[in-house]
C-alpha cells in the first residue's frame, strides 16, 4: 500500500500543467513563456514518476531522464533564437515577432 495515493500526484501534476498553459497564453515575454514550458514539462515528468512508482516499474523514470535531455537541448536552442531575434530588432515582444521573417 502506497503512503500517498498516486491520484493525488496526478492531480498536482494537472494543476502545475494548467499553470504552465495559462502562463504561455497570458505572458508576453518569450523568456517567461519558456519558463512556463519548463513548468509544463516538469508537470508531465511528475506524472511519469508517479505512475512508474504506481506500477512498480522503472520505465517512468527512464522517460523522465530523456525528457530532461530534450528540455536542455530545447532551452539552449530556444534562448539562442531569442538572442538572435533581439539582435535584429532590439525588441522581443512576442506580438511583434509573430512572423518568422523580417
Amino acid at each position, binding site marked *: *500500500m502506497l503512503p500517498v495515493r498516486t491520484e493525488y500526484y496526478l492531480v498536482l501534476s494537472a494543476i502545475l500543467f494548467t499553470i504552465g498553459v495559462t502562463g504561455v497564453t497570458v505572458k508576453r515575454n518569450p*523568456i517567461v513563456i519558456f519558463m512556463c514550458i519548463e513548468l509544463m514539462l516538469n508537470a508531465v515528468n511528475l506524472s511519469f514518476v508517479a505512475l512508474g*512508482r504506481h506500477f512498480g516499474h*522503472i520505465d517512468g523514470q527512464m522517460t523522465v531522464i530523456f525528457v530532461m535531455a530534450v528540455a536542455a537541448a530545447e532551452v539552449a536552442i530556444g534562448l*539562442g533564437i531569442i538572442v538572435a531575434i533581439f539582435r535584429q530588432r532590439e525588441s522581443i515582444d512576442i506580438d511583434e515577432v509573430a512572423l518568422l521573417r523580417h
Partner: protein
Amino acid sequence: MSAQMVLFAVLATLSVVTAILVVVHRNPVRSALSLVCNLIVLAVLYLTLSAQFVAAIQIIVYAGAIMVLFLFTVMLLNLGAPEALRETGRVQGVVGVALGLSFLAAILGAGTISAGLGPSAATEESLRTGGTAEAIGRHMFEPGLPWHFAFELTSVLLLVGIVGAVVLAKRRL
C-alpha cells in the same frame, strides 16, 4: 493523516504557489527565481516517490544548468527592467485564466484521474531500489530493451543542439 500525507500537502502547496509566482511576476528575474524554487520542490517530490536518481538529476540539470541559461539570457538582453515590455492587457489575463480553469476541469474530468487507477503494483522491493542510479543504469543498457537506442539518439540530439546554438550565436557565418 499520516506524516507522508502532511509532507505531500506541504510540498504540493509550495509547488503550486511557486508556479503561480512564475506566471504572476512582471520581472523575469523574479520569475526565474520562483522557477528555481519550484524545481527544487519538485525534486523533493521525486524523493517522496522514491526516485532518488531523478531527484539528483533534476537539481543538477534543471536547477543548475537550465536556470543559469535563463538568468544569463535575461541579463544578456537586459530584460530585468519590468517596463521593457508592454503590460499584458487585463482582458487577456482574464480570458487566459478562464481558459486555463476550463482546461484543468477537462483534464481532471477525463481519463484515469476521475476513474481511479486501481490497486498499486508497487512492492517493498520496487519502492526501496526502484530509483537508484544502479537500477536505472542497468535498465538503460539491458539487452532487449529499447532504451539504449534512445540513449544514442539523445547523444545525436545534444550534438545537434550544440551545433545549432553555435550557428545561432554567430553574427555571420
